[in-house]
């Protein structure tokens, strides 16, 4: 038997923020264990990224002309971004499943900070993104993709991608906490990602799009992060002098986007989470 006073003494040794992070990390560890046991997740994290890289590189690789650069180099940052964007859907499904299971009651009955369930979920998504990026990068390198922008730039690109995944997971969390079942969460979590990722420069140059779509694509977050990654990995696209700010300065645009999205959706998810858990 462990006496209560020992536990209390240990708990009081650290402040609220320490325990919030502690609880989030414990939950993140739990979610990663769950992922490891779920063959579907394994497929999403390991097999699908490889298939995507190979599929796009070999199937579309010859068909789409992107000028001087090889389509593979053009394409790989796009696939990175699309795959990482799925972290949003995954957060939606995971959180919704937790809310619909008895485990949340168990968490609530503990003297933990239950918001750690939310942050822990997104930490786990972040860890998945690291793995996914690693696998995609290795696959890419194996078929001839090269990083030409220098070491620090590459690190910066990866950090941007992870920050992107993290902000997507807050949108996903907001969706997952607003819908009734994991099935709906899955549909709603993915539905908006496809138009968003395809209406961008991820797979085709935006110049080919009709005007109204082109304006959307030019200001699309996906476009600016893909352009940032292309630049940082050493495959900058030519930018016309009359191109909008978002294309002239993709990195700054991306950072603004990520800050805005996180600033909006983190509190929304937090609010929804507290509402759902206080039912």
């Amino acid at each position, binding site marked *: *038997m462990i006496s209560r006073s020992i*536990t209390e003494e240990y708990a009081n040794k650290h402040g609220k923020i320490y*325990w919030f992070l502690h609880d989030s990390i*414990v939950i993140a560890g739990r979610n990663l*264990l769950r992922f490891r046991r779920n063959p579907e997740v394994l497929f999403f994290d390991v097999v699908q990224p490889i298939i995507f890289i190979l599929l796009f590189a070999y199937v579309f690789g010859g068909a789409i002309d992107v000028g001087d650069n090889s389509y593979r180099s053009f394409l790989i940052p796009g696939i990175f971004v699309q795959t990482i964007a799925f972290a949003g859907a995954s957060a939606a499904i995971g959180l919704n499943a937790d809310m619909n299971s008895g485990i949340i*009651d168990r968490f609530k*009955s*503990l*003297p933990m900070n239950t918001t750690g369930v939310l942050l822990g979920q997104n930490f786990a998504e972040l860890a998945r993104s690291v793995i996914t990026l690693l696998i995609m990068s290795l696959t890419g390198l194996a078929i001839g993709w090269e990083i030409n922008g220098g070491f620090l730039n590459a690190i910066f690109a990866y950090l941007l991608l992870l920050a992107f995944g993290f902000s997507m997971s807050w949108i996903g969390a907001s969706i997952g906490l607003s819908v009734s079942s994991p099935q709906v969460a899955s549909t709603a979590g993915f539905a908006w990602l496809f138009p968003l990722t395809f209406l961008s420069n991820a797979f085709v140059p935006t110049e080919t799009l009709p005007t109204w779509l082109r304006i959307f694509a030019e200001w699309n977050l996906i476009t600016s992060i893909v352009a940032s990654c292309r630049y940082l990995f050493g495959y900058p696209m030519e930018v016309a002098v009359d191109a909008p700010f978002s294309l002239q300065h993709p990195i700054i645009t991306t950072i603004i986007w990520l800050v805005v999205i996180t600033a909006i959706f983190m509190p929304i998810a937090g609010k929804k989470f507290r509402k759902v858990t206080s039912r």
Partner: protein
Amino acid sequence: MSIAIEATDLIKKYGDVTALDGLSLKVEQGTVFGLLGPNGAGKTTAVRVLTTLLKPDSGSATVSGVDVINDPVHAREIIGLSGQNASVDENLTGIENLIMLGRLFRLPKKEAIIRAHDLLERFNLTDAAKRIVKTYSGGMRRRLDLAASLIANPIILFLDEPTTGLDPRSRLMMWDVIERLVAEGTTVLLTTQYLEEADQLADKIAVIDKGKVIAQGTADELKTQVGGERIDVVVDQSKAEQAAQALQSMASGKVVIEGEHVQAPVSGGGVKVVEAVRALDIAKIEIKEIQLRRPTLDDVFLSLTGHHAEEVKIEDENVLVKKGRR
């Protein structure tokens, strides 16, 4: 005796549905309190309020003197809950579940591991420690869930229908586990639809219906409230009339004959059986069988709620389970 759980005038409405309609109860420390009622009576809602999971619209509740509504964080350190749906992570193993919960209870990692192993051993789950919970039987899951609720070393334990859906063997095992906890000094509030379960485990029972306590007391008190005892004698059918006459003088009401059964209402318990044997012996009537019958909790339930009780037979060890129905 100090009061471990106290609820006063709890009200909780979901739209038009009144889940709790002024529920009040008091549970003494170190006792088992049974909350008995049919589906939809408000049992689970009551437990959710008392365990800080749900805020009532009005009313107050304390556990060990701590206000569950205004000081839920402190209250959670006192209580444990094992719910109707086992609240453990199905995709983790038994040991992973308990270590995770121990750490969220803010035990140092090492202590969390030690405690997890202790609990698994205590609940006979050591062999299944490294199996994913998905593969557990219903009884194992409930035991793991109960083990999970004990991580925190609660002094008050809430068990929401701890044996619903379990086979008779697992149910007996669960009863045994609960009895051991009580012997160690834990105060237990359990909800159940099984009348036998309340009779078996609870020191005190509150019958609730439509969000209100409609009767309260020990199992014996509730039975007495519904009606007295009766002596049931089985004799040769030809002697039944004679036996009824012989028993009438000691009976507290009219003696009734049903075939070879002669039933005499009495008050006074076991002594009356001896008197009845003597009376029948003097009248030279051979007794095939004699029994003191007391009303079952089922009778209590029916007479208090006016709902019919449905009998469900589970074909094992002649355990008869009665299921309350609205």
